[in-house]
């Protein structure tokens, strides 16, 4: 909590660098806003002049001048308002844009610790909605506060000029109404929050009812779901009506306050007019101020409370932007090899593909147990390493280290004999191919997906890659060939087909190191066969790490690492491990029909 207070007034300090480029615009906006509110506060004076001069004296002599002044003021104000709103909206959008760009780019540099800790939905909301809220804050909310504040000040000054006694009558009401507004705000804020929470629960229910329809029907759980839903909507109704009761009471009280001001003016002002101290025009000016002044006060307080509620959004975005990657290239490395956005490829050495783990110990940043301790393994170029073990046993740890998604806690990862940290991540990733367990395709065409790692690949290269993983027939069979749209998440293809496409994508870059996370999801046997053949082609002439689920596919790997409960328990080739009759043997025999039959 203490930490929260340390970053400046309402989090503005954090936003300053983003506001700075637009400071001139803001200055213009603020000055124009103040002028506009000043003009607004002057309009009642026209009524006063007409009543006291023209009507009281029964003359139309000054009317043309009046019309000219009025039109001049009006035209200036119309222009002023137009310009202010235009600047304000642009300011909002530019702030949004800058913050979105900044946070999106920052995300590209963050390590996986961050992505594992936060869900996609959470991060997405930071980029898409928090930035918008903040943009709104520095433009419209800020402008509201300025305009209302200066409007109140202008009215007060004008009133004091016209008649001090009547002015004081109205000014006295200001603190009273501020207190009333604050009291209601205190009551209304938690009520509104409760309504929003119930609302999101209702959406959640709906979502479940629709996405889970097959399960609901097969479990005959319709009545139960309906019952739960109705309970939630009833809750919603109760909470909303309660909120409405309070907010209606609030409006009623505020309206009553306005009329109270009016009645005071009628009483005091009427008396003064009767006594011929002031003229009717002055009385009418005060009557309109009496009815007008409470609205800007309400608006002002509303804007301030929004400002406070946006603190949470600022805080969350600040957290995102202040998070630093666990895996960072040192300054020297960045100078020599460039960073992710500006790689200096001219300085990149060729990667041979020898990998060595040297006394590597590793703890996940969010864990507290060593998953690797003093681990040593030499993987010369061309070696095929297979990692096996049950789901959730921690098979991906080694792979995460090779990809430098995490850094070893102790010890070294040597690439071509040099510490991996001596070269940039970009250099390593440019030489690395990674095929995911759940193949991820981007929206776009087949071609766009295939050339993702090598944007300048020719059609010929593409088809060579496709042929290598025997996916060329698949693509040729598509209506638009390479230019076929893959649909959202690649849903035009089956899981197995997506797997093949992502193989082709990896092979097209011709990486020295290949990481392959075998799919767990079920693929039918024919596709399975094609995938197995493709894998054999893929790992040729590369250093490869294969996370395997079906042991029949990795029996000829050079090194097999068997992982159990996060630790490597056995190491060796298939023959050696089978001879051991240990954990690998158990795993293997449980999967193979022939052994089990015996």
């Amino acid at each position, binding site marked *: 909590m203490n930490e929260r207070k340390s970053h400046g007034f309402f989090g503005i300090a954090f936003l300053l660098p983003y506001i700075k480029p637009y400071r001139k615009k803001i200055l213009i906006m603020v000055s124009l806003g103040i002028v506009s509110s000043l003009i607004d506060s002057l309009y009642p004076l026209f009524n006063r002049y007409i009543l006291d001069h023209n*009507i009281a004296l029964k003359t139309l002599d000054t009317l043309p001048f009046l019309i000219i002044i009025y039109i001049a003021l009006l035209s200036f104000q119309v222009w002023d308002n137009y310009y202010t709103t*235009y600047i304000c909206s642009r300011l909002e959008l530019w702030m949004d844009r800058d913050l979105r760009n900044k946070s999106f780019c920052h995300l590209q540099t963050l390590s996986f610790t961050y992505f594992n800790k936060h869900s996609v939905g959470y991060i997405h909301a930071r980029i898409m909605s928090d930035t918008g809220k903040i943009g709104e804050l520095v433009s419209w909310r800020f402008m509201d506060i300025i305009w209302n504040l200066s409007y109140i000040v202008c009215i007060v000054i004008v009133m004091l000029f016209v008649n001090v006694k009547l002015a004081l009558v109205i000014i006295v009401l200001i603190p009273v109404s501020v207190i009333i507004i604050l009291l209601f705000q205190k009551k209304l804020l938690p009520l509104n929050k409760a309504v929003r929470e119930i609302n999101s629960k209702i959406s959640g229910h709906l979502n479940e009812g*629709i996405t889970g329809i097959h399960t609901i029907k097969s479990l005959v759980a319709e009545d139960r779901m309906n019952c739960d839903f109705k309970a939630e909507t009833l809750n919603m109704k109760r909470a909303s009506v309660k909120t409405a009761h309070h907010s209606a009471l609030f409006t009623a009280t505020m309206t009553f306050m306005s009329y*109270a001001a009016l009645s005071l003016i009628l009483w005091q002002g009427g008396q003064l007019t009767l006594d011929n101290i002031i003229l009717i025009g002055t009385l009418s000016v005060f009557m309109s101020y009496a009815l007008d002044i409470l609205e800007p006060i309400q608006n002002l307080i509303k804007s301030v409370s929004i400002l406070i509620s946006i603190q949470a959004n600022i805080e969350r975005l600040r957290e995102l932007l202040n998070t630093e990657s666990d895996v960072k290239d040192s300054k020297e490395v960045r100078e020599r090899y460039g960073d992710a956005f500006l790689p200096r490829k001219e300085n990149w050495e060729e990667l041979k593909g020898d990998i060595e783990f040297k006394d590597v110990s590793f703890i996940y940043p969010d864990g507290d147990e060593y998953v690797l301790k003093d681990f040593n393994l030499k993987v010369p170029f061309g070696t095929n390493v297979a990692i096996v073990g049950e789901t959730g046993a921690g098979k991906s740890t080694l792979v995460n280290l090779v990809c430098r998604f995490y850094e070893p806690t102790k010890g070294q990862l040597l690439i071509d004999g040099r510490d991996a940290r001596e070269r940039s991540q970009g250099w390593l990733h440019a030489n690395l191919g*990674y095929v995911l367990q759940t193949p*991820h395709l981007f929206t776009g065409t087949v071609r766009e997906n295939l050339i*993702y790692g090598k944007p300048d690949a020719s059609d010929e290269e593409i088809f060579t890659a496709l042929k290598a993983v025997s996916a060329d027939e698949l693509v040729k069979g598509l209506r638009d060939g390479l230019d076929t749209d893959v649909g959202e998440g690649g849903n035009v293809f089956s899981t197995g087909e997506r797997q093949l496409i992502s193989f082709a994508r990896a092979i097209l870059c011709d990486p020295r190191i290949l990481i392959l996370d075998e799919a767990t999801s079920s693929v039918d046997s024919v596709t399975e066969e094609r995938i197995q053949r493709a894998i054999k082609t893929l790992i040729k002439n590369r250093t490869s790490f294969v996370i395997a689920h079906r042991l029949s596919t990795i029996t000829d790997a050079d090194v097999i690492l068997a992982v159990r409960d996060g630790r490597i328990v056995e190491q060796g080739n298939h023959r050696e491990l089978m001879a051991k009759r240990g954990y690998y043997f158990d795993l293997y025999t449980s999967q193979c029909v022939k052994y089990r039959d015996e």
Partner: protein
Amino acid sequence: MELIILLKRKHQTHNNKYKTRLSLLFYFLKGSKRYFLLSLIFAGCVSVLDLIFPKIIAFTVDRIITDTDSSASYTGGFFNYIVERAGGYEYIRANMYLVALFVLLMAFLAVTFRYLFQFFNSLGAESLIKRIRDLLYDHILKLPMSWHSSNHTGDIIQRATSDVETVKNFLSDQLTNFIRVIVLIVLSIAFMASINLPLTLVAVILMPVIILYSLIFHGKIASSFLKVDEMEGRVSSIVQENLTGVRVVRAFGRESYEQDRFVSMNERYVNTWIHLMRLLSKFWATGDLISGLQILFILVAGSILCVNGNISAGNLIAFISYNSLLTWPIRMLARVVADMGKAGVSIDRIQYILNSEPEDFEDPLKEQDSFKELSDPKAIRELFKKDIEFKNVSFSYKEGAMALSDISFRLKGGQTLGILGSTGSGKSTLINLLDRMYDPDKGSILIGGTDIRSLDRRGLRENIGLVLQEPFLFSGTIRENLIIACREPSEEKVKKAVKTAALEETIRDFTRGYETYVGERGITLSGGQKQRLAIARMLLTECPVMIFDDSLSAVDSETDLRIRNALKESDLKATRIIISHRISTIMNSDLILVLDKGRLIESGSHEELLSLKGKYKRFYDLQNFGLE
């Protein structure tokens, strides 16, 4: 043929249910109409009182303060009466606080009505939205699978959330406001006309201009709003994809490409917005100009009239107040009208859901005698322990693409059926037909000799336990998920089901055990854990028929075997249907079906199929290659 005619007839009657937008609105308004009516009555009171205030001021200024006896207006008599009762003009002039008190009294009345108006309005609105939501949810659950699979989830949710919200806002906010504004405008004009007709004409002369202008403008920018929405969607999906594919982006080192893509789309999005905001700013400024000019017209015309003695000073003040009451409502009117169009679209979108037929609507065999015979739940349960038979069943989801053609087989009660086939071979379709998510186009499915179409869907599904490949878990605790389909099972039963599904240790590992939250708000279970939880959930229903639709795919082979053995040993003598790609999972079944492109190509026991040396043998060899 008769069946089809019967279906068609019913189809028509149903679609007539909410034929027009208006009939649907009235259907929604059931139960909340009286609140809205009350709120409208109070709204009328508020408007009248709002309009009386300027009159009080005019009267006070003209009669009490300046004592210029001008032409008496019709309410003059009323105020006169009050003044007389209060002690005459002189007395009031000496005690001006009486005027103040009178204003306060009227103000109190006005705000009381205002409160009542708002309260009843929200009571109406909330009752209404509750009704719409409940109706929709109930209906959505009743709609057949074919409807659900042919409509996008996102779209249905959109209809059930934001469209409902639009309709609610329209009915509670815009419609009541619209009526209130109309009342206010009409009354203001009447009051103004009663003060001075020529001046009123000056006041209303710009009104049609403002309304027309706003209408045209709102029509024009509708497309710009759509464009902005579309752009936002694109920016948002780039972020979404980048986040879900973060590993691919990193492994291919494509951060800068992603950045460029995002920045340029972001720029386009912002520019579209700026374009729209420019239009809007222009619109607002023009509105300001027109209303400013209107005020000027009245000021000038009013002062000329006043100087010539055609209107009193107090009445001029009152007139100016009425005019300022009019300015905003008129500018708002056009927006309300524009929003009405949106509400109309939303109503249509909700109507689409409510007018779709629920699945039990079309039970053609419902009226037959056999249907009634089996209304006893115990009899139905007994029935499901008997043989399951498919007789020449054919089915297609879409015309021209056969999902299943001419399938026939018979499975004895209590036996195990294994189904093998590639993706799209019709395995899941077969299950969908058995569970009556769909009905076959041709042929029939019999259980214990009874056509399943003559059984009530719910009764049928209560006796068929189904575990899907990607099972759906509800947000809630593990326990809540387990017992969702059966009412208060004993602790012992729950434990047993959990043990059979090999989930015991997993639950023990969670610090909160059975009370661990899963789904949206809780921890994310792995695919295998989800499948096992779904199996336990299904076991608790103790169905005589159990279907495992590839539901062990994410479980490792060892656990798979453990579960199958536990199932075999359990005292539930259920008929089991197992779909899998793994030969090892189904090879011990009593009957194995091999499906290919919707056709049954091989069937028999494991040994029989192996000796056929067909597709089954090929699959078997494929899955065991690499073995010495």
